[in-house]
């Protein structure tokens, strides 16, 4: 039906992955970090879909489903944590969370 080369799909996935990584590294706002993390996870999902499409198997999509589950669980827990953090520290600055070091 289509002729999208696998490597192009993978490259897109890698691009998104890397952009997500940049987001995690560069942003200090915890919510933005979580969002960037979602981008990374989503990118891996895309990679699985691309791979699944190459082999014509359902496994790729199932892996995507599992990633989706993970994303949901992680966002749930993560946002709960963000709320607690904001209540306690009154900031979302990831860098200010350095009470333990050394």
């Amino acid at each position: 039906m289509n002729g999208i080369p696998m490597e192009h799909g993978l490259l897109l996935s890698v691009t998104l992955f890397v952009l997500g990584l940049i987001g995690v590294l560069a942003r200090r706002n915890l919510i933005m970090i979580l969002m960037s993390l979602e981008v990374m996870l989503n990118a891996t999902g895309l990679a699985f879909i691309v791979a699944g499409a190459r082999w014509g198997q359902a496994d790729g999509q199932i892996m995507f489903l599992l990633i989706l589950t993970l994303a949901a669980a992680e966002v749930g827990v993560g946002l709960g944590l963000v709320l607690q953090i904001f209540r306690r520290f009154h900031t979302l600055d990831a860098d200010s969370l350095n009470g333990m070091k050394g």
Partner: protein
Amino acid sequence: MKVIELLGWIPLFPFLGFLILVLAGDRFSKPLITWLGVGSVAVAAILVALIGAEFLNGTMEPYRMVLGVWMDVDDLSIPIGFYLDALSVTMLFVVTGVGFLIHVYSAGFMASDPGYASFSAYMNLFVSAMLVLVLADNLVLLYLGWEGVGLGSYLLIGFWYEDTNNGYAARKAFVMTRVGDTALLIGLFLLFTQLHTFDIQILMLRATSHWAPGALLPVAAATLLLGGALGKSAQLPLQSWLPDAMAGPTPVSALIHAATMVTAGVYLIARTNALFMMAPSVQFAVAVIGALTLLMSGCSALVQTDIKRILAYSTISQIGYMFLALGVGAWPSAIFHLLTHAFFKALLFLAAGAVIFCFHHEHNIFKMGGLRKAMPLAFWSFLIGSAALSALPFTSGFYSKHEILLAAFDASPGLWAAGCLGAIITGIYCFRLVFVVFFGRECPVIETRLGWQMSIPLVLLGALALFGGMLKIPLDSVFPVLFNNDPAFDLVAVITATAPLIGLSIAALFYLTGTFSAQRLVDFRVANQMRIFCFNGWGVDALYGALVVRPFKAIAKLNKNDAVDRAYTGIALLSRGGHLMASASQTGRIRWYVSSMALGTVVIIAIGLLS
């Protein structure tokens, strides 16, 4: 049972005396201590007399007695064995005889000292060790005695331990002689490695049969043994401990540093004469060292003011004569001189001790004077001793020294000349001492009465010093007879005999009649510097200080905290630095942590792809 089988008891008695005294001495009363200390030596002396008589009257066959096994490993077998021949008999007489007299003397001299018990014990230890030394049939046992006398000497020099200087002198004596001992020990190793035995007689036989004369090995072995002898006998260049050793009580100086221990080196060389004859160059070196030493220390004795130091330098000088004798192959003469020297030097020391005793430990001769009348016994003893020492004709010293000098002339006129010069110098310092102390201005004497313990030995030794020259020791059975000369060279004999008289006259001109004044000589700058140079023992101590002692101390102090440890501290510091650096990476920041993960991933992928 023959008396000779009691040989093993000779060193044992003094040793038992030592043990008893050292273990329980401080609980005994003074007389008991005296009886134990003197008695044990006396028993030994009696045994020596009996055995000696039996031996000398017998066939004079060397007698060997093995008491037990000391060590027996592999091919190394060291028995506790004693060997009796004319040489050891002579030495036994000296050690026990003179030792006994000095013991008696010290019973008076040291009676009031609180440490009398330990003093007696140490003396006994010394005598016992010396007896082992002379009786040993193998070199290791000899070394045991050798070190034992060193220990005894250390203990006795430092006997008055409250004065730090005495401790220093004692340590100096021990360490310096140890330098020689070390050479001796290495020599022992060399001998055993090559000849596979320590037994002296077998060793000498094997040395002559296995080695060629003048070859490297005998030369090396003889050199090493010589090193040991130099240390113990205070010969150049290891002589400087002896004057300092005078810090000990005077009987100690008499016994150890005049009569017995310092002659151990002579005994060793005489004992191993076969080896030295295999190494003519070394033997010649012995003679040269003897000659040099006798001159140098004679000069030093000239300028000393401490009565005991004068005698100490004279001892060095006299042993120099013995070395000279050994070096020229006049073995019996060396031992003969050893014998007579033991008499007159012990006598001199004991007389000096009496003087010092009476002056309450005053040593400076220029603070004495005119003692001739106050202390006749001391004066006569001193006079006889000095005469013998400077070898005035018909004293004991004359016979022995005369033989040596004639033999030296045989070997080399140069050596003979040195010996004669030495004899002149000896005459000067001997009589300088006599004239200064016993003639001239009379000094107030504090205490002149000598107990019988001190008088009797003086008398007996005086007799020996005077007539000891008549003793004929049958040493020919021990030593190879090399030359057999009647005094053919009359001129030489005359010069040799008159040399001490010249010295005597010079001393008289300076110190008795006052014709010349030493003070005036000192006014010359060169002369004064020479005086100081000689006074300090030719700067040997200073040289050692600069070359060895001070560098060693400096390095030791510098390295007190151990440079090697610093290396480990370095490792510790390195780890600490690593820790601090690594710790700095733990910033506590999430984004930094993510970066490290990302970086790590990048790196491991790179490694994976590139490898």
